[in-house]
């Protein structure tokens, strides 16, 4: 259920940007989603295909760039990328003192639009 309102948010942000650019049709939405944000890529595209029907974004593809989360061991300085579930100890020294940073961003980086179809004829922005 989480992905549905998230996808609505993506659509709203993308449509607003497309309208500001003159009502061009959206062909691609570039997203940055953190590794720890518990978002399933396939679900986003699935909901998007339904929610975007009849809008300027209908048929657009979603390109999701994952922002990694990084752990830094405070004992040995080892750094590595982590995902869920987090491991309880450092893979290098087996110590327990490390910090996890990043991996929680969540934004529309850019949209790509079709220049030749700036009228947006036949498409209207949804509420």
């Amino acid at each position: 259920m989480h992905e549905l309102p998230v996808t609505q948010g993506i659509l709203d942000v993308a449509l607003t940007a497309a309208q500001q650019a003159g009502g061009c049709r959206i062909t691609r939405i570039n997203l940055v989603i953190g590794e720890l944000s518990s978002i399933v890529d396939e679900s986003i595209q699935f909901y998007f295909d339904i929610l975007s029907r009849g809008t300027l974004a209908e048929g657009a593809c979603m390109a999701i760039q994952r922002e990694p989360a990084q752990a830094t061991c405070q004992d040995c300085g080892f750094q590595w990328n982590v995902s869920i579930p987090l491991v309880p100890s450092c893979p290098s020294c087996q110590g327990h003192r490390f910090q996890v940073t990043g991996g929680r961003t969540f934004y529309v980086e850019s949209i790509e639009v079709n220049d030749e179809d700036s009228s947006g004829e036949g498409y209207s922005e949804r509420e």
Partner: protein
Amino acid sequence: MKIPVVKDILSANDQVAAENRTVFDAANVFVANVMASPGAGKTSMILATAKHLPPEIRLGVIEGDVASSIDADAIAAHDIPVVQINTGGNCHLDAPMISKALTHLPLTEIQLLFIENVGNLICPAGFALGANIAVVVASVPEGHDKPYKYPGMFASADIVLLNKIDLIDVFEFDVLDFRRGVGLVNPEVPIFPICCRTGEGVDAWTEWLVEHIHAD
């Protein structure tokens, strides 16, 4: 043609959350967003805390549930003003839901508002409501591995309450491992062990809460 956007996906929700916060601040109400998995003891924690609050801090509650008014009825039975939000299957509360519920609360008569979120360790952490603090309630029977599996939730916490500590031996709960897991993503967050059934630790957490209300 590529058009740069760089806008938070949930910015529309964040905007309403900021408006909620303005309403809370104007009414001098301190708001805690209470998040936990189902059955961790969110309602029990609210009721146990209510018993320890000083008389000058009057409490109101917003109850978020997928369905039913079981929790809201439990709160109302203690003469605490309560508004029920049924999300109709949605797994979390969002800022517009709170905005609507606010009109049914006597904001000028309360100083503290608990918003009990839907039981879920994933989605609620992503949706700001306009609260002053996020309270994450974990409980012993869930196991000490939860911070490793749901880092987003524990990273969002301003305080973590570890409930049902009377069951630590029964469930062979490793408190140190739990604390380490929380510390990975949220090194400074205070962790208060409590037991809503016996009342153990509830006074210490309430004292922390009251200090933060007064400091706000």
